[in-house]
């Protein structure tokens, strides 16, 4: 069952790579939150209940509900246009994402370590690189933020892989989540929306050496 959920998680990446509208990204982030909730519940059997409840609450409240709602609110408030405006055509994006996933699978197969659940490794790494690719290939700041949130979800998957032995690391991952979301979303996306009317990265190129 964990495998099914994780594979659905990878499929969401492919879906994002061809998505046209920003709202689709938000929905996918919410879906990823729910998937992570399921994976966490099934994977972390060995840690104490209180900690598990905390982690589950974080995934469902934070990742699946609060952040997507807030993103939605930001999009409406700042009148961000609905198009995602990638620099690269969607078809090419799909091909690149697929290549990333295939390469990580090949990489994971070269690892000989019985301690590792390979699927966690594959999902985490491919999410990481796909997220970086999204950041590099999209024009709007808000899509950059979403790329970052996707990376965080990938990191969370990886932390689940070692979660039973070291629950502290999962908690640290949650700290990272909350820190980054509050700092990036709460303060700056709000401010940037106020100061820069149309939020494109092109406007953020005034800091120069002269």
């Amino acid at each position, binding site marked *: 069952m964990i495998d099914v959920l994780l594979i659905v998680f990878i499929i969401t990446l492919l879906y994002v790579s061809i998505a046209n509208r920003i709202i689709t990204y938000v929905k996918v982030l919410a879906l990823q939150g729910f998937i992570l909730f399921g994976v966490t519940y099934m994977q972390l059997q060995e840690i104490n209940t209180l900690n598990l409840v905390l982690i589950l609450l974080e995934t469902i409240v934070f990742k699946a509900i609060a952040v997507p709602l807030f993103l939605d609110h930001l999009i409406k408030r700042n009148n961000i246009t609905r198009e995602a405006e990638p620099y690269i055509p969607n078809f090419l994006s799909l091909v690149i994402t697929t290549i990333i996933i295939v390469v990580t699978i090949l990489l994971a197969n070269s690892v000989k370590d019985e301690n590792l659940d390979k699927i966690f490794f594959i999902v985490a790494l491919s999410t990481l690189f796909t997220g970086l690719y999204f950041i590099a290939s999209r024009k709007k700041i808000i899509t950059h933020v979403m790329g970052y949130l996707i990376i965080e979800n990938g990191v969370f998957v990886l932390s689940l892989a070692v979660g039973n032995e070291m629950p502290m690391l999962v908690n640290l991952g949650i700290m990272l989540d909350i820190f*980054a979301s509050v700092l990036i979303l709460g303060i700056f996306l709000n401010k940037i929306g106020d100061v820069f009317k149309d939020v494109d990265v092109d406007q953020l190129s005034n800091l120069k050496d002269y």
Partner: protein
Amino acid sequence: MTGIYLAGAILIVILIFANRNKIINNVLLILFGLLQSVFTIYQCSNYKGTDLGYFTSDSLGILFLITLTVVSLPALFHSYLYINRHDESPQSRSVYFAAIVLLITSISAAYLANHIAVVWIFTELTTLSASALIYHHRNKLALEGTWKYVFICAISITFVFIGILFLSLSLSGTGSSDLSYANLMAKSDQLNPFWLRLAFLFIFTGFTAKLGLVPMYTAGVDAKDKAPAPAGALLSSALMNMGFIGIFRFYTVIAQTPLHHWANIVIFVSAILSIFVATVYMTKVVNIKRMFAYSSIEHMGLVMLGIAAGGIGYYAAVLHLILHALVKSSLFFQFNQLYRVFQSKSVAYVGNYFKYNPTGAIVLLIAFISATAMPPSGLFVSEFLIFRALFEGQYIFVLLLVLLLLTIIIWAFAKNIFKILFTPVVGFDDSNVPQINPWESLTQYALLLAAVWLGLNPPEIFVELIRESVILLQI
């Protein structure tokens, strides 16, 4: 004591942030200065002791902590002058001071942390506090700088976290789950090399955002440009040392494994690229603060070359970091006076500084001589030792390339500094130039003199501490 320090500092942060009264704020700042000094003295007396289980005052931590305290007291003083002079609103004043106190506290804690996850947590806190400092002016450019800094640091922190996860995978074969450096050292022969390799790559990449090396150096440059100069001084000295400590402590573990040579190659590539990037930008740069920032990148590249070369290079690297922190912070402190005279950051509109503020101009001249590592500056000694390490390690081509690049950097740096010092600006209206109080330069002279003294005639105990801090690498 570490507990008292952290609790006290956080209390001070909250109080400064919460109240808007100027006098109370200043009293709190003085209190924090005292707390920081007492804490530093306590840590020196408590050598090798462990507090709260996670903070060990080892030699490297103590050295950097003393450096931080020495730099941070003038930084607080200059911040006070800066804020007073700019007639800030009570809100922006308290946010600034709260952020700078939090920054100093979290850097101190990160220096002493003996557990990789604790270092990581305090690295997060430095990002938070530094971003408040960068956003101090609340205009479009400051927002842009802050946004870039926050975003790149957030990605870097995520990278470090991934590295920690890989490290825990690497450790899982040994049957232990304790990620403290001492345990990692003890288990270093059982670590799984594949995961260790990935862990090093990610942790190294992540910390380069703080250290200021290729690939993540960009954020730091914008940050030092947009933050007020006293805060910029901390960002380009103490914060860079923190990035170094993050990499160095893990590197010490790697050095015990067969991956040592491979890690050296990674560091070499990054260091040489950093010096190259610094050279390219130095020849072009017109913004004075950014010029200082690029010069920091060059120095960090040299430090990492020393680490990768090994031998005497380890000693030289730590010495270089300490001296660089002193010199670069005095340059940033001086920048404020320069800006008050000319009201511009661009070399094109700044010139003939000797005429308007001779005391400050001499600081700038000495700091330039120090930063380019010409004798009698202390950095000459450390840089010379780094070159010796490269030579002894048979890295002749690297040495030649670096020397060539450094020559270009010195040329570019000198061209701009001599323009600032001697060449009058056409059409500069000097009727409104404020009189600069020479005593404000006192701290800068003290820092520069300290750098010369520590380089040329280091006290016995200082040498001993540096030796002690790299002793684990002498295999």
